[in-house]
């Protein structure tokens, strides 16, 4: 395993990605202390006399939004939202996907087939439409949005885990151990699961990228995390109509989303390279 870590750290892109993630986590966790203002405070002088937002200046480092709130503070607190959703939604997706994939791959038979058919069904479902339908209608809250995203994202993980589990479960030593009478929980937790950990780790990281993108998209459409909770996609949604006049309201949060997704993608990809024993070289 240490070889894998060495490989990982030698990858410059992965290091860059890790740095960005660290910065985002720092920003999000430290938001209450780092933010110059309360992200909810609507400043009267945060808007021009005619109600237009202010561009970046000495008082508001990244400008203000359409309600006169400080953009920089909202970005910092928005990092929290993205991190929470990323971890919770992706975590839920990984748990559900791993569980179902594992059961299907290990138990096989009619239960396994049924689970995989269900997975096929969910794959055929237009993902964004499903997320929109769920998010637009149900009681909006951070946790519901996280759950909606998890409902959409678990499928790919389930398939990958299933494939791996089936190939693992048919290996000779498993068959042999079975023949020797070992009980299945031991088989599962000692012999199968550890081999799946690399995959789970990789998908957990890559999954955060997709989750963050999906959350930002839902917020952009107005149906993600609801105001006044600051969220990067939500800031863009509110500011869309002013986009040509106040582009900073779209670009700063948009780039934040991009950087977060990018860094998790880089790290996840590097992890995959590092952990994959059948690596065929970069």
């Amino acid at each position, binding site marked *: 395993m240490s070889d894998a870590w060495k490989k990982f750290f030698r990858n410059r892109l992965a290091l860059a990605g890790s740095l960005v993630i660290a910065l985002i986590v720092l920003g999000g966790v430290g938001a209450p202390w780092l933010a110059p203002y309360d992200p*909810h*405070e*609507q400043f*009267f002088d945060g*808007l021009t*006399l*005619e*109600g*237009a937002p202010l561009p970046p200046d000495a008082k508001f480092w990244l400008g203000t939004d*359409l*309600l006169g709130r400080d953009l920089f503070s909202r970005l910092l607190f928005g990092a929290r939202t993205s991190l929470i959703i990323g971890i919770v939604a992706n975590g839920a997706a990984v748990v559900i996907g791993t569980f179902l994939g594992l059961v299907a791959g290990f138990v096989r038979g009619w239960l396994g087939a049924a689970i995989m058919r269900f997975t096929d069904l969910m794959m055929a479902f237009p993902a964004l439409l499903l997320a929109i339908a769920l998010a*637009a*209608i149900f*009681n*909006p809250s951070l946790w519901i949005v996280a759950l909606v995203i998890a409902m959409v994202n678990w499928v790919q993980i389930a398939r990958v885990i299933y494939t791996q589990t089936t190939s693992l479960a048919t290996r000779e030593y498993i068959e042999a151990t079975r023949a020797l009478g070992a009980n299945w929980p031991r088989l599962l937790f000692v012999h199968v699961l550890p081999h799946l950990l690399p995959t789970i780790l990789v998908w957990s990281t890559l999954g955060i990228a997709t989750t963050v993108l999906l959350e930002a998209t839902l917020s952009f459409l*107005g*149906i993600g995390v*609801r*105001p*006044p909770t600051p969220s990067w996609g939500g800031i863009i*949604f*509110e500011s*869309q*109509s*002013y*986009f*040509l*006049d*106040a582009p900073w309201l779209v670009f700063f949060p948009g780039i934040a989303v991009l950087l977060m997704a990018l860094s998790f993608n880089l790290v996840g990809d590097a992890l995959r390279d590092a952990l994959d024993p059948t690596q065929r070289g970069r």
Partner: protein
Amino acid sequence: MKTARSMLLAIVAAAVMATAAATAQAAGGKMIVTFKDDVSTLDPAIGYDWQNWSMIKSLFDGLMDYKPGTTDLVPELAQSYEISPDGTQYTFKLHPEAKFHNGRPITADDVKWSIERAVNPKTQSPGAGFFSAIKGFEEANSGKTDKLSGIVVLDPHTVRFDLSRPDATFLHVLQLNFSFPVPKEEVERLGADFGKSPVGSGAYKLKEWTLGQRIVFVRNPDYWKKDTPKLDEIEFQFGQDPSVALLRLKKGEVDILGDGIPPARFLEVKNDPANKGLIVQGNQLQTGYVTMNVKIKPFDNVKVRQAVNMAINKERIVKIINNRAVPATQPLPPSMPGYDKNYKGYPYDPEGAKKLLKDAGFPNGFETELYANNTDPNPRIAQAIQQDLATIGIKANLKTLAQSAVIQAGGDGTAPMIWSGGMAWIADFPDPSDFYGPILGCGGAVQGGWNWSWYCNKDLDKLGAEADAVTDPAKKAEREEMWRKIFIKIMDDAPWAPVFNELRFTMHSPRVKGEDSWFVDPVHIPVHYDEVYVAQ
């Protein structure tokens, strides 16, 4: 002698032709209007959104209409009408030259059949309820019979309406699209597709409808009103984002911004001297308000509701929407008859509000929920209101949902506070009773109703019914006074916190001309299609 006479005749003929040519030159030309969304339907019995409402008015005629640019009722298809002294019988004589676009003259039978169609449940018309004053409505609306016994055809050009009670708004009802005559044979031929291939009797005919892209109206050459319409053709283009449409207007590619001036560019456009004369400002029959559900504590306490009224900084909210509205003091909008110019309403006074809360037993405020619809700018306005409430100690948790979900919560009575933006009441017709019944009257305070504050004051209901029974046109001012008193009474009880009245700004290209009032006609949005014309 003969030569002199023939010369005179020739001169007169030439003069007549020249005048005719000059008049013909004033009419004609094409106008392009842009919209973001496609039109849902052009069936007068079904169309009920602000976009198709005026288009339908140009494709069809009603018994009554309004003088262009005003809210004064005038007869349209009806050449003349009579109201019985007790106000329960209306007799109309139809214009003999009025014809449908397929060439057939409009008769009293058509008038009767069309309203029966609107009331018939199979049509699924949202406007069936407007005709409830007509005798026989219950039987027809429940599907027991196809016919409305209260509409009587006296002869091919005379029709009489028998009402079960005097209704001062009845003439307004006959101006609603739902009452417009439609040709029975075309409706039966096209069935549910009549909405996409309407055959009317109005100033324009439908020439083309490419779904999602374009609708083209073309002048009706056989229209019975002379010199109307003034354009040869109107093209409606869809899928045009308001910002894009604005740029195209500047380039001269389009003539009217159907969705109005995009909010972000509003200030820039308004202050640009090049646009002088191209932007017309007018009022809308609209109020934006916060409803408070009197059945949910603590909004059952009038002091709490009054405190909310005093806590909202209306000037700031108007600023947030770039001054495209004026603060509101009462439920009725300023251009509605019955509006009280002298009523000041509740002042902006957070300290006074806090004191009221203390008196009501909430020195530390309380927690509640504020619903709003999730299309911009409503979440922003809701957040501004939320901040104002927080200043006096009320912690309002925001719930921004799809419009349908908010409407459901309001109709179910589960929402304590609702910001009405995007779903706010716009008057169906310019009469104060339309602003009362469904949204503040006891009749609307039911499951599925639109009286989201569930306010039911039986005394006011009775006063309202009395006001509506005053059908004598000579007593118009008296009736308005009765309604004025009713709405002021409502403000004393404060089930609503009126926030602003939206203004309307219509921008048009230099080549489109007409009276200012036609560009901000209260009933025809965005413009009065029949009246505006193009400089040739």
